[in-house]
């Protein structure tokens, strides 16, 4: 038995199970029920016996608890004059059943001593009726706390999520996070295995509650933090006979504005294998990025009031998607454990997307301290892409080692047509007007294989903590591009230009990475020498990369009307890099603990790391041939402290100092200038050097674990850093606004950013709670560059904060208020030009489970956008939907939805960089109404 973990579970028991009474009665109509559970055969008061009180008429669970060290139980809120069944159960004993009621007169029923008979005395003769009703709601099983699903009476169509909401101490947060007594649940498993991927919601929203035998809560070691902390997991144990099942969905939706959706899923699982086929076709911006998202989208979901599924009206452009995918998992060990699994997983997604994106923007570019360029652009972009993605993963883990083989194959075949019109002017006159039409067809193939082997860290074993890894990746790209570009001068000095160009480009990239090292080489080097308790680790990363590019460019000769080879842009190039990064890791752990009081751990780690980087380019163009090498020292120091004050809090603070090098690439050193990008010409800089980032990060995490309190959880992170020899743009504008951009090393780039998250649940009573979430982020940046040889510094500050409060009442009503405020401000030193943008978003969401199977969901969002260069924009999005579940198993769903009822949605663009500021609008989804019909065949 692991008492480190048992402690957490027992705190949990103390926190929640003594008051775990779920009832809906007036405080004046309740009385007290108490008693002592006793084994008369052995003269023994039974502690941790499970006590459950059921309503005799409805068989509904009224209250439950575990007996204390004296075998006693007391319930203070038992409805009066109700016929009740008291069921007392414990492993090894025959369940006892007592019929009783708490009278209105005494308001107290004392059961005195209730005798449990050892099971072997009765030969396990238990009545069927008792077996069904006598399930102990909760019990301890070694280090594991177990909730018996049968004890919780819910709607026959409830899913696991509905059950979890009923369990004391569990909080399901709006962002999908689950916490148990304030601790984050890292994984939700079904029978010890992931269920159709790692997303917990797939299990929670598809598996019927009736299939579940137990929900188990336990802790496992945190491999990343070593001895510092443990992780909380939840395992859903299915009933025997319910270890296999089929769940599916077929749905169709028709709406105004020619909006439509078709969805389908078929998922099959048994004790060792899971297989799912899933597909969608829609033009409502529901873009399936992976198979897991699709499965999630097609989940059955419970019957309660749930507000999380709202369409996202902020997605830019209109995307029509068609996709079909599959996911497969086979466990060679039918009941895997944390240290013993053997699993094969794979998924495949075939996707076709059609994207229609149009936008109007206005960009101001600082040129000199007194002048600026203003660009007005209208663009339209239509793209079609067909992609295949296949992922495979094999994992074998034993108590001694872990082996992983993973691979990924993807093919992306598509075409794109974009059309843009750009007018350019300076502060007093129009300069030019240009149009550009790009057509391209591309085919990109990517494949990689990744192999990893590591042995368990064990200071007593010579080869403990060893890690070996190899990765090979290959990417090929074929891109046929056709460009029509025309520039009409509107001012003297601007040359009329017309280009019609064909570009056939091929590229082939191969990257290989070899990783080898050990977390503990001290034993290997110094045998059993103590060396002041310092652990020595070694890591080596060797990387080889080779990229071949072949461009065949032809321009239309206006006189002969023939396409002629563009000798400058037609080119064959091979860019190779080799890097070797050895790291020696010296670490020492200081630990002090006093039993049942506190545990303090301080980890110090120093990474002595250097990096050798070699780059070599061979090209048809002689000026592109170069060989460069770099040797950089990249040390890192990590100090982390963990403090656990038992029954009070856990706190982790870490301070990290890290360094990173970024190297100039071919495009920075010697690019080929594309003459068709007349407004943006890239120029090489052979003297450019690598940049170096030095950054310091502090992380803070606090989890309260006080008895009988609503425990707060706080996470905060703050980073400051500077980049030496930052590779920044040096921009030169000519008189007609044409940009020539080269990279140059500048010093003085500094940045700071931070995030903050606070989560606080407030338990109002046994059936309702409040959830508060406050979060914020901050980014500060001082980024220098050159504009027309003038040193310019852009100061950027952006921050956002979010406040979210939800009220949940007995799974029938959910109210949510969300306030989000974000601010962006930038100022350039060259001309004191400032740009600011403030965005405020207030959402009122509600979901009301009115009566059986009927839900009304309302979503009201006020958007307010204020910009220093754009008129204030305010708009409101109001969505409303009515959902009705039909048939006996509630597996037919009719839904009427009205989106953007006020016809008010606007797509607003606002962003800036070192020398330019852009605002504009983009096409987005607008008002439509939709009727959706979905059928969920399910068999478990």
């Amino acid at each position, binding site marked *: *038995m692991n*008492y480190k973990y*048992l*402690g957490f579970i*027992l705190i949990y*028991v103390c926190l929640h199970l003594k008051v775990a009474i779920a009832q809906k009665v007036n405080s004046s109509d309740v009385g007290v029920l108490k008693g002592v559970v006793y*084994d008369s055969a*052995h*003269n*023994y*008061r039974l*502690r941790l016996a499970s006590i459950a009180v059921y309503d005799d008429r409805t068989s509904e669970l009224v209250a439950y608890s575990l007996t*204390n*060290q*004296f*075998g006693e139980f*007391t319930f203070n809120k038992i409805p009066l004059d109700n016929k009740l069944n008291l069921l007392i159960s414990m492993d090894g004993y025959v369940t006892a059943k007592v019929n009783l009621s708490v009278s209105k007169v005494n308001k107290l029923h004392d059961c005195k001593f209730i005798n449990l008979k050892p099971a072997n005395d009765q030969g396990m003769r238990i009545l069927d009726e008792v077996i069904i009703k006598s399930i102990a709601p909760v019990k301890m099983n070694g280090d594991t706390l177990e909730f018996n699903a049968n004890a919780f009476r819910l709607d026959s169509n409830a899913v696991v999520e509905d059950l979890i909401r009923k369990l004391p101490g569990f909080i399901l947060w709006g962002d999908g996070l689950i916490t148990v007594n304030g601790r984050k649940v890292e994984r939700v498993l079904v029978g010890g295995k992931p269920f159709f991927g790692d997303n917990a919601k797939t299990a929670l929203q598809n598996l019927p509650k009736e299939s579940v035998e137990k929900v188990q809560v336990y802790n496992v070691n945190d491999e990343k933090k070593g001895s510092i902390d443990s992780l909380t997991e939840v395992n859903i144990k299915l009933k025997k006979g319910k270890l296999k099942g089929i769940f599916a969905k077929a749905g169709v939706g028709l709406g105004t504005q020619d909006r439509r959706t078709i969805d389908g899923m078929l998922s099959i699982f048994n004790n060792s294998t899971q297989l799912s086929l899933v597909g969608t076709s829609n033009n409502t911006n529901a873009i399936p990025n992976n198979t897991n998202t699709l499965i999630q989208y097609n989940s059955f979901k419970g019957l309660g009031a749930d507000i999380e599924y709202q369409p996202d009206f902020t997605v830019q452009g209109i995307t029509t998607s068609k996709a079909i995918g599959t996911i497969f998992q086979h466990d060679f060990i039918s009941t895997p454990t944390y240290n013993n699994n053997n699993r094969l997983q794979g998924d495949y997604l075939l996707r076709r997307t059609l994207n229609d994106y149009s936008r109007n923007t206005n960009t101001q570019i600082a040129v000199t301290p007194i002048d600026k360029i203003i660009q007005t652009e209208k663009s339209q972009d239509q793209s079609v892409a067909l992609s295949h993605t296949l992922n495979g993963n094999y994992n074998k883990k034993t108590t001694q080692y872990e082996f992983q083989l993973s691979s990924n194959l993807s093919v992306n075949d598509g075409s794109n047509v974009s059309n843009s019109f750009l007018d350019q002017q300076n502060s007093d006159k129009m300069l030019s007007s240009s149009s550009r039409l790009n057509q391209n067809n591309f085919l990109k193939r990517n494949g990689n294989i990744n192999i990893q082997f590591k042995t368990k860290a064990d200071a007593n074993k010579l080869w403990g903590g060893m890690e070996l890894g190899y990765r090979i990746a290959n990417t090929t790209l074929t891109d046929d591009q056709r460009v029509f570009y025309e520039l009409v001068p509107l001012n003297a000095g601007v040359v009329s230009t017309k280009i019609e160009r064909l570009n056939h480009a091929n590229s082939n990239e191969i990257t290989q990475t070899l990783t080898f090292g050990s977390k503990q080489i001290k034993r290997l080097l110094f045998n059993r020498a103590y060396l002041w308790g310092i652990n020595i680790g070694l890591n080596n990363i060797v990387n080889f990369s080779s990229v071949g590019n072949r461009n065949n460019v032809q321009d239309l000769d206006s006189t002969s009307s023939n396409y002629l080879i563009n000798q400058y842009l037609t080119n064959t190039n091979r860019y190779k890099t080799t890097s070797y990064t050895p790291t020696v890791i010296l670490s020492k752990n200081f630990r*002090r*603990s*006093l*039993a*049942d*009081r*506190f545990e303090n751990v301080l980890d110090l780690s120093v990474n002595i790391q250097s990096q050798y980087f070699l780059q070599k380019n061979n090209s048809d163009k002689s000026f592109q041939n170069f060989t460069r090498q770099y040797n950089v020292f990249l040390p890192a120091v990590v100090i982390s402290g963990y403090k656990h004050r*038992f*029954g009070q809090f856990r706190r982790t603070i870490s301070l990290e100092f890290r360094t990173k090098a970024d190297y100039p690439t071919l495009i920075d050193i010697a690019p080929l200038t594309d003459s068709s990008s007349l407004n943006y010409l890239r120029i090489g800089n052979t003297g450019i050097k690598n940049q170096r980032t030095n950054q310091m990060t502090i992380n803070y995490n606090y989890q309260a674990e006080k008895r009988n309190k609503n425990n707060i959880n706080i996470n905060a992170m703050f980073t400051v850093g500077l980049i030496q020899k930052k590779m920044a743009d040096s921009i030169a504008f000519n008189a007609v606004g044409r940009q020539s951009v080269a990279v140059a090393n500048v010093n003085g780039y500094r940045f700071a950013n931070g995030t903050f998250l606070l989560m606080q649940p407030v338990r109002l009573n046994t059936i309702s709670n409040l959830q508060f979430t406050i979060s914020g982020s901050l980014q500060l940046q001082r980024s220098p560059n050159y504009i027309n040889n003038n040193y310019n510094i852009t100061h950027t500050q952006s921050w956002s904060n979010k406040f979210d409060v939800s009220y949940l009442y007995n799974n029938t009503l959910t109210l949510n208020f969300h306030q989000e405020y974000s601010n962006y401000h930038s100022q350039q030193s060259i001309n004191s030009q400032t740009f600011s943008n403030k965005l405020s978003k207030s959402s009122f969401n509600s979901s009301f489970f009115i009566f059986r199977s009927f839900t009304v969901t309302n979503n009201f969002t006020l958007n307010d956008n204020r910009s220093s260069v754009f008129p204030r924009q305010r708009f409101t999005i109001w969505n409303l939907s009515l959902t009705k579940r039909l048939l006996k198993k509630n597996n037919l769903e009719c839904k009427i939805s009205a989106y953007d009822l006020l016809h008010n949605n606007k797509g607003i663009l606002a962003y800036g960089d070192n020398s330019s500021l852009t605002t504009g609008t983009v096409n987005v989804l607008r008002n439509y109404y939709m009727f959706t019909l979905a059928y969920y065949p399910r068999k478990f």
Partner: protein
Amino acid sequence: MKLKTIFILPFLMNILLSGNIFAQVEQQLRVDPDNSQGGNFSDFFDEIDFIPLETNKHSIFSSIDQLEVTNDHFIILDRETNAVLIFNRKGGFESKIIATTLGYDYPIHYFFYDRGNQRIILPNPVKRDEILIFDLRGQIIKKEKTTFNNFEDLYFLKNGDIAHYNYNVDGRRSSSTSNEVFIENSGKIKSRYFPYNTKTAVLKSAEVLENSHANFYRTANDSAALLVRPYDYHIYRLSNNCLDTIFSIVLPLNHTLPSNFRSDSTFTKTRFKYLRSNPQIVFNLSNVYLIGNKLFIKLQNLDKSYSLFYDIKTGIFADVLKITADHKSSFLSFNDAILGGPEFFNKNFLHGDGTFLYTSYSASRFLNQKTENKDKIIDYPPHLEKNFRSLNAQSNPIIIQLKPKLN
């Protein structure tokens, strides 16, 4: 024939030179641990005292890993802080041995107490023939070479006799005869028991699953100690010149080791596997305390160990963990296992002096009980009220001293 005699002769000589082994008055104690009784605290104990140990920056420690009780002192080993602490019987802190200050740069795994000379002895884990001797003020008296190295357990009997427990068998050692238990005085062996060959004995040291506490246990009589051995269900009484088998524990078949588990070579290299496959089987006896005719004993297995009370006179046995606190203990538990703590599960009763039993748990568990028992009307004695007021969750563990009911 002559050759055989040469080999057998030393063995026969050894037996002849051995003490009066098996001069026993053996009593069989038949125990079914799964069907043991429970009861109220007052059914088993006459007295209980909760003794807080002073907490200050010098005396703060984690938990009691080993406890020795003298007339005036509690001597405590805390492995977490790697110190031996000396408190008076009222819980007042007196002194501390911090071995590292003496150049003893190793964790202290255990200490011995020489009751006759009132000396605390720390064995050097690296120089196994060296010991460090301290007085009860925590002052070092001397470092001393010992004749008998590699001992595993010592017990100081009367008149300067020292009992050794030592079982060290390895196929790589040279062949010689040694004794699992022997008594020496000033380096001279007086009596020997349980002979074995250091090279060829069937049971190798690497296959012994050690007892989690000790081999020798104090009795009310300073001239005798109780002795237990691995994979052996007998309890022996060792005195200056005699070894008796006083009890033999008989368990139900499903909890019992095969009778040839120690001696049969078919178990070679499979003993641990056998115990892992049969986790309910009791492989060791430990924490053996005989107070009057009440025997307290821990039965160790890999599943869940049993802590039992056995009334020698009546044959009634009970599970200590089934004893419920009552008015006599002010409804405070005498062990933390019932409160969800690890101390009693892992360490059981820490010490027995023939009159009292001693155990320990944290101050926070002691304090929490008052909160958890708030629904009960309890008239706490003044010293307990004082403890509730003076202790906090960060205080040192408390010692619980229990006097078993003898009638």
